């Protein structure tokens, strides 16, 4: 085994070989430190985004780091025949698919008054009988303010509080919007948007593009939205008080189920599939994919939606992501937020559930 015949190494040879071993190990370790971001501090990482959300909103243990204030709902989805030709997903072929959802406000502050923002969000998990799931996080605005995670991060930084005053710099957001012309479509919408009095009267948009994939493998780019059916007209003014949305929802559900129609807007050639800040203009074919029926609600602190990460890239076979860069960023950042709050579930129970006066 041991080859005693080998000549001993000269001191220089020994040093050289040891240095060579050190160099190989250092090279591998260095490459790893680059890949994990240690040697690449400028890179936008999931934790960079979630840290920025925590900086802007404060740390509220147990709560989602964004869309922190919300309520759990449950019900089912009834498919129509229209999406079946476009997608092989079981959710469109099964008559009924159970859903768990969550309505929320788009802020990382769980105590934000309901009238503080004109935007509401609706996240849904469809649980197919075959075990696959479809999760989507939708918002009441038709477009996202920006199209890339880098611009989203810049927007968070622009809205951050100055350490000296504890208040956001008033020039921050105007300067950001001026530097980001892609926010124009969102700004046009937000000008006329008012905080709604109810979650039930809103249309919720998937915003990002996805592909419906048929059994034949054919891919059709779409954006989806859910449109309220026979719920009170939009335009109700928000009542006084800070926590009216959840009460309104509980009241409405006590009177009967709430329904939304799931629409799939088929992309025309030339529609941007990778830029959620752009509207799809002109005539579009819209499929009625089915009806989302909500029957019950639960407070989020112990509700079934609490432990769900509404990662928009949890998709069933038959629905695929587009190359919209926000999708991967949402998936990555949600995972980071989920890890933080999953370890803090017990803190949620001791947190006050009402807005701070």
């Amino acid at each position, binding site marked *: 085994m*041991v080859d005693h015949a080998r000549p001993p190494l000269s001191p220089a040879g020994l040093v050289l*070989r*040891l240095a*060579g071993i050190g160099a190989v190990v250092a090279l*591998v370790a260095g490459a790893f430190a680059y890949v994990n971001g240690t040697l690449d501090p400028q890179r936008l990482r999931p934790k*960079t985004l979630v840290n920025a959300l925590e900086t802007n909103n404060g740390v509220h243990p147990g709560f989602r780091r964004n869309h922190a204030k919300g309520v759990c709902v449950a019900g089912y989805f009834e498919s129509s025949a229209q999406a079946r030709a476009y997608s092989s997903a079981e959710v469109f072929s099964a008559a009924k698919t159970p859903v768990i959802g969550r309505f929320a406000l788009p802020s990382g502050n769980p105590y934000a008054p309901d009238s503080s923002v004109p935007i509401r969000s609706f996240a849904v998990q469809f649980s197919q009988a075959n*075990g696959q799931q479809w999760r989507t996080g939708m918002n009441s605005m038709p477009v996202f303010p920006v199209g890339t995670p880098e611009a989203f991060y810049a927007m968070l930084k622009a809205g951050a509080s100055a350490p000296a005053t504890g208040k956001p710099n008033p020039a921050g957001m105007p300067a950001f919007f001026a530097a980001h012309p892609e926010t124009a479509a969102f700004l046009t919408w937000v000008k006329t948007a008012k905080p709604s009095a109810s979650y039930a009267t809103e249309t919720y948009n998937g915003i990002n593009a996805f592909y419906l994939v048929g059994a034949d493998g054919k891919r059709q780019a779409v954006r989806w939205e859910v449109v309220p059916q026979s719920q009170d007209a939009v335009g109700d003014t928000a009542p006084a008080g800070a926590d009216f949305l959840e009460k309104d929802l509980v009241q409405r559900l006590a009177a009967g189920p709430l329904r939304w129609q799931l629409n799939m807007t088929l992309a025309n050639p030339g529609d941007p599939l990778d830029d959620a800040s752009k509207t799809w203009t002109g005539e579009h074919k819209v499929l009625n994919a089915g009806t989302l029926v909500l029957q019950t609600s639960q407070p989020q602190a112990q509700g079934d939606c609490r432990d769900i990460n509404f990662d928009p*890239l949890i998709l069933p076979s038959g629905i695929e992501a587009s190359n919209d860069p926000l999708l991967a960023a949402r998936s990555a950042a949600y995972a980071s937020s*989920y890890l933080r709050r*999953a370890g803090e579930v017990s803190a949620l129970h001791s947190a006050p559930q009402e807005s701070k006066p």
Partner: protein
Amino acid sequence: MNAQPRFFAPLARLLHWLMALMIIAMLFIGAGMAASVSERHEWLIHLHKPLGIAILALVIVRLVVRFATRQPPLPVDLPLWQVLAAKASHLVLYALMLVLPLLGWAMISAAGDPVMLSSSVQLPALVAANAPLFAVLRKAHGFLAYLLFLTVLLHLAAALFHGLIRRDGVLQSMTGTKD
């Protein structure tokens, strides 16, 4: 009694080098996807899951091969601390190769997410959905992956030390080269 083998069995060597490539790739994929919000995050995750399950399957085969074949002995003149370090590091490597994929599988299950290896291949949940358990498993997955990376570095340094400094045939027992 047969003479002690000079080399690991050919199948053991094949598994070693194949898994060496897979595990190093896996460590870089994992570190990269956890530190990225770009599209890389998505396609790395789609590599990470099936590759992890492949490693889990191979390590089971490898353990069977390990117990079914004879290992070449360490050199008789190897200092005791190096013998112990070699044995302990091999134990850590085998344990982590087995535990890391199971932790990954379990943590996805604990998050309540479907365990998808592709758009249609799904594994059953290893544990019931449980968010606090997810947090523990996810942190353990990351921490132990770093421990595996450090052990792999140590293993690499030791292999080169045997091959270039001691020149005692230990590196050759796995490369299969005669000299």
